[in-house]
């Protein structure tokens, strides 16, 4: 994918995170307001209902008194006989203070017979303002018509709690809209900006890698959060990709080199055969050399194919228990003369009776590769030793020599395909032997490593069981 094909980076406001926060903030505010208003309305309704009930009861009582005992009794009952029948403006202050009821009884010509003249009610339920020089508090009033067109109005000051509740609801609404909503949007913006930046970092990394800058890695904040995990995972993947790419490059160079030499040898010998065709002895020598080169080619191919096969795990079906001790014993017997011919001392200590569940042929190949490695790469007159031991739960195979050992700079790479410590590639071998050993050993759930100390190279294979 080229850079131009990448989805264009969106800005913070368009990011998914911000959109989500925007939507959820709006939903939160709306739901909160709905609940707030529902509660306030319920409270107001209760306040109103209580007041209405109080006035209603009073009106009923007054009517009862009026019809059963007459107008005078009503006036006396309501006002008492020691006060003025018509209430003064001053008295209203007291009533307001105590939350007492107001009332007025008027004749059919609207002149007040008793009560407060400033209370005006036409008929039924109303909310009115008193005719009073100072008091503006609204009054809920119920007016009923009595016999002979007399009119009785009874009222009460509207409970201040009602007003308070209403203004609280309005204040809360404004606060929500003007403070909470913008605040959550600002927070949301900040959060999405952070998220967006971290994602951008990661996305920039992938873009850079795609553009060929293999060494670029996603930055990590060190907080071990989900982004660090994502970046960490990505970086691990990129490391592996980089390693594999480097390995493939190495493999290509290795293959090219290891195939080129024998191929040109074969070509050269064919030319010599043509030239020396009159001399059967020379031709035979050329054919021998060409065959040797061809054998070398075949070994590279075989090793590669086998490596591929082992790595793909195809050989696991052939697993069966076999006598590892006998197998290694026989290999040592086979290789001992080769070490002797090379003037190297070879000793083997094989613990008997060890069986292993695996592919005998592959294990023999692996051990053979280790022996050949020791044969080829140990110093002159080296002492090479093989040990097979068993202790609690482990079977350990050691193949080691006493020099010259493997340089520390090469230690990490010796199991790589086509890696050769000898950069000139002039020593025998194709750099596949140890890769194959590792692949085979890993197929058997075991591990192979190079011993830490010691003058020579000592390979240790540890099998479970």
């Amino acid at each position, binding site marked *: 994918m080229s850079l131009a094909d990448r989805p264009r980076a969106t800005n913070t406001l368009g990011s998914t995170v911000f959109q989500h926060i925007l939507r959820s903030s709006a939903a939160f505010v709306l739901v909160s307001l709905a609940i707030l208003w529902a509660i306030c309305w319920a409270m107001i309704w209760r306040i109103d209902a209580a007041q209405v009930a109080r006035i209603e009861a009073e009106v009923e009582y007054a009517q009862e008194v009026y019809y059963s005992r007459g107008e005078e009794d009503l006036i006396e009952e309501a006002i008492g006989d020691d006060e003025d029948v018509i209430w003064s403006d001053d008295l209203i202050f007291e009533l307001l203070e105590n939350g007492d009821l107001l009332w007025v009884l008027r004749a059919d010509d609207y002149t007040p017979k008793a009560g407060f003249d400033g209370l005006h009610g036409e008929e039924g339920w109303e909310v009115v303002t008193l005719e009073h020089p100072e008091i503006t508090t609204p009054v809920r009033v119920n007016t009923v018509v009595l016999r002979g067109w007399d009119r009785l109005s009874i009222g009460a000051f509207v409970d201040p709690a009602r007003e308070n509740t209403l203004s609280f609801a309005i204040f809360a609404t404004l606060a929500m809209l003007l403070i909470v909503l913008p605040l959550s949007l600002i927070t949301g913006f900040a959060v999405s900006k952070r998220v967006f930046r971290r994602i951008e970092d990661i996305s920039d990394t992938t873009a850079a890698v795609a553009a060929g800058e293999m060494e670029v890695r996603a930055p990590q904040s060190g907080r071990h959060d989900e982004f660090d995990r994502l970046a960490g995972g990505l970086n691990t993947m990129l490391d592996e990709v980089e390693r594999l790419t480097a390995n493939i490059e190495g493999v290509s160079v290795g293959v090219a080199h290891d195939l080129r030499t024998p191929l040109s040898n074969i070509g050269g010998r064919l030319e010599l055969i043509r030239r020396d065709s009159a001399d059967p002895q020379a031709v035979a020598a050329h*054919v021998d050399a060409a065959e040797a080169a061809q054998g070398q080619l*075949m070994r590279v191919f*075989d090793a590669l*194919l086998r490596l591929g096969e082992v790595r793909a795990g195809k050989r696991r079906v*052939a697993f069966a228990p076999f006598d590892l001790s006998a197998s290694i014993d*026989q290999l040592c*017997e*086979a290789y001992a003369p080769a070490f002797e011919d090379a003037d190297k001392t070879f000793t083997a200590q094989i613990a008997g009776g060890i069986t292993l569940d695996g592919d005998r042929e592959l294990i023999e190949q692996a051990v053979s590769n280790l022996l*050949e490695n020791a044969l080829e790469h140990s110093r002159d007159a080296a002492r090479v030793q093989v040990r097979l031991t068993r202790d609690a739960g482990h079977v350990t195979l050691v193949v080691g020599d006493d020099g010259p050992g493997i340089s520390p700079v090469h230690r990490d790479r010796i199991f790589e395909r086509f890696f050769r410590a000898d950069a000139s590639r002039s020593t025998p071998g194709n750099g596949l032997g140890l890769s194959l050993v590792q692949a085979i050993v890993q197929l058997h759930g075991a591990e192979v490593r190079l011993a830490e100390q010691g003058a020579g190279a000592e390979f240790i294979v540890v099998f479970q069981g």
Partner: protein
Amino acid sequence: MNILIIEDDAETGAYLTRGLQEAGWDVQLCTAAQEGILAVSTRDFDAVVLDRMLPGMDGVDALRLMRGAGVTTPVLMLTARTAIHDRVEGLEAGADDYLLKPFAMSELLARLKIIARRPARTPEVTEMTVGPLHINRVTRVATREGTDLDLSPLEFRLLDFLMGHAGEVVTRTILLEQVWGYRFDPKTSLVQTHMSRLRAKVDKPFDEEVIRTVRGAGYVLG
């Protein structure tokens, strides 16, 4: 010897035919599996060379058909190098041996000789004599003209195998497989190393060589 070759590739077919004819054998070449199965059921062959990949029918299936029809003729399968696990399938289907392509003609000839005479092979005997050589498999003593050769167990096995195939060319690969049981090709010339030790004991102290090197092919005893 009378050999049937079932191989679809013209060049390989011609190479095989020529190689086997030069060895003095009768060869019949079939290019299709059906044709080959028909030939093997109507004529008596000493051995069959069967390619693993044939047009129309897989070599393994063809082999199963043959074995199913009661054909007991020894079969050598030719398989590509890319499919090492194929050989297990081939052997299970009833092949007597297999050979990976590409191969040397000497290798093919040696293997065909071994499988062609396998049914007639004498049962295990305790003693064997070839020319001046004599081995006793129970005491594991090998002598030449009555002189004890003092062989290591491995050298004894090597000599035993060579004597069992006296007069035949035995290749390095066959020795690795039959004497050591190794199906891989070690870089170190293990066979040569052991062979030279064996020959140092069997031939060096005596006037006449009984083991000869066949250039580019292997060894022959007697």
